[in-house]
């Protein structure tokens, strides 16, 4: 074996080891969920999932809470997605296409807001939402989440709009598109991949979000899965198999959708974040 052959074999081994490390915790979550009580604390740990225990995933849904958590997460995430896109598409389009008074200021604002930790705004948002009755509501969480997704998604979409030649829009105008029609019928379809990637990013911001949900929601029926699942941390009365099974069910949609959209998301994130 020559030196360069050796290097490329070693590289392959390392890359597969890295990939293994990357997915091991998820694998382990699954293995734990399907380990029987007897094997859980046995002298040598069970290293592969046992298919006979798959019933655990049905079991966790029998209890109402898990279903409610996931449904709540879904509603919050979907709401965040819709609101974010509704605001970010016009904003990103305007940024890509038009001059307007205050453009530089708004640009700096969008940049600075990407630096604000959520934790900093928990208290003031709490005090704004409280008199408006937005605590303990989906709306409150959706509004708070969108404040944090909007800047990033705006930049991602602005960069996408920048790639669409102005002539296409002019052709659409000559073809008879008026006002916002050219955006909707011609430009948006062209950047659909970026819009879809933005939707996924916004959705999972809402799906994953924890601090606001923890602080704003005290009503159990409104808790999303992030808060519900976090409640298991340090708690010992629930069997670890059930906890991990809920973890799997909560993680799976996020990972699956990311994988579907990965090509667009990564380039979009890199281009969209913190770039003037």
């Amino acid at each position: 074996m020559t030196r360069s052959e050796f290097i490329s074999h070693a590289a392959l081994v390392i890359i597969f080891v890295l990939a293994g490390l990357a997915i091991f915790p998820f694998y382990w979550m699954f293995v734990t969920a399907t380990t029987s009580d007897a094997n859980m604390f046995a002298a040598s740990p069970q290293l592969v999932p046992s298919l006979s225990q798959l019933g655990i995933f049905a079991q966790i849904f029998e209890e109402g809470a898990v279903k409610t958590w996931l449904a709540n997460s879904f509603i919050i995430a979907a709401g965040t997605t819709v609101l974010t896109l509704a605001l970010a598409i016009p904003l990103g389009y305007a940024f890509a296409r038009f001059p307007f008074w205050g453009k530089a200021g708004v640009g700096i604002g969008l940049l600075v807001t990407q630096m604000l930790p959520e934790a900093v705004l928990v208290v003031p948002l709490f005090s704004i939402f409280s008199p408006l009755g937005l605590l303990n509501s989906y709306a409150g969480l959706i509004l708070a989440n969108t404040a944090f997704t909007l800047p990033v998604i705006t930049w991602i979409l602005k960069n996408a709009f920048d790639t669409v030649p102005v002539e296409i829009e002019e052709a659409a105008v000559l073809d008879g598109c008026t006002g916002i029609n050219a955006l909707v019928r011609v430009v948006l379809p062209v950047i659909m991949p970026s819009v879809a990637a933005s939707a996924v990013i916004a959705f999972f911001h809402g799906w994953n979000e924890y601090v606001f949900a923890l602080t704003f929601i005290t009503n159990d029926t409104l808790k999303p899965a992030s808060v519900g699942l976090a409640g298991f941390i340090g708690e010992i009365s629930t069997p670890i198999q059930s906890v991990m099974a809920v973890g799997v069910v909560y993680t799976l949609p996020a990972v699956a959708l990311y994988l579907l959209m990965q090509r667009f998301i990564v380039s979009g994130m890199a281009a969209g974040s913190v770039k003037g």
Partner: protein
Amino acid sequence: MASVILNGVRKTFGAVNVIPGIDLEIESGEFVALVGPSGCGKSTLLRMIAGLEEVSGGEVWIEGRKVNDVSPKDRNIAMVFQSYALYPQMTVAENMSFNLRLAKKPKAEIRERVAEAARMLDLEALLDRKPGQLSGGQRQRVAMGRAIVRSPKVFLFDEPLSNLDAKLRVAMRAEIKQLHQKVKTTSVYVTHDQIEAMTLADRLVVLNKGHVEQQGSPLDLYNRPANLFVAGFIGSPAMNFLEARAARGDGHLRAQLADGNALELDPALGVADGQEIIIGLRPELINNDAGEAVCGEVIMIEPMGAQTLVYFSYGGKTVTAIVDGEHRVAVGETFRSGIERRRIHVFDRASGMRRDPE
């Protein structure tokens, strides 16, 4: 009736006066080429006709209607862009029918008109493809198809062939010409390529720095360029320019050249004794043994097959001539040829304007 009229049309971008004022009338069914160097304002002018740019002053009339305040879609024009500007997510058929669909035309009519345009442009096999799956020439044809389908009153073309390679450009040029002969729609065609303009257009409008240098038929401009700019712009290879001083005496008019040579000119020319002038000689016309003698030492030759370009020194400059490919010439020899006296162009050096017999 004039189809398009520009009446003192001006355009400024901020403080920059791109088009100081243009008057132009384009007849119904005419094919007019706006030609000029890059940056001279051709696209701006075209886009003002389309309504994609607002005029800073003056009036634009299309088909007897003042359209200054008419939106682009209501001007009854179609435009073919340099980049084609096809909608990437739509099929060829959808691209071509977009305007008709927006105008809510009956489905049957749309289908028929798309089919007809596709037949005319040989696009029938491609109707279900997306622009991304087409070659450059095919995209170009779709862009024209999109324009034709609307049966507009005026076609506007902005350098539609400049993204194609040389061979395809010549082929598409012929197609555009045939198309115009078929549909006879008024066409305004912008290009910086004078050959394209000459071969396509009924009338050329030569633009320079936002104003019209000269307009006329291709041969008019070739034979009687009004000034040095047009003379240098039209024709390829470009006209040779030689500085000279006019000398009158005993009924003769001579151009005294820098290297001591002299050329006999038509004495009827409106040129005074001692006037500083520029002599213009077209390379392809320095081939006449009978005319005024033009000779000098050969500096370089470029054989091209049927013809050979000969570079020789004359009148203090390097002069280009085109001779038959059979003609043997060698570097260092003396090149002997001549040009008919009536083919010699004379310009006033100070104003750059053409001098004609009075």
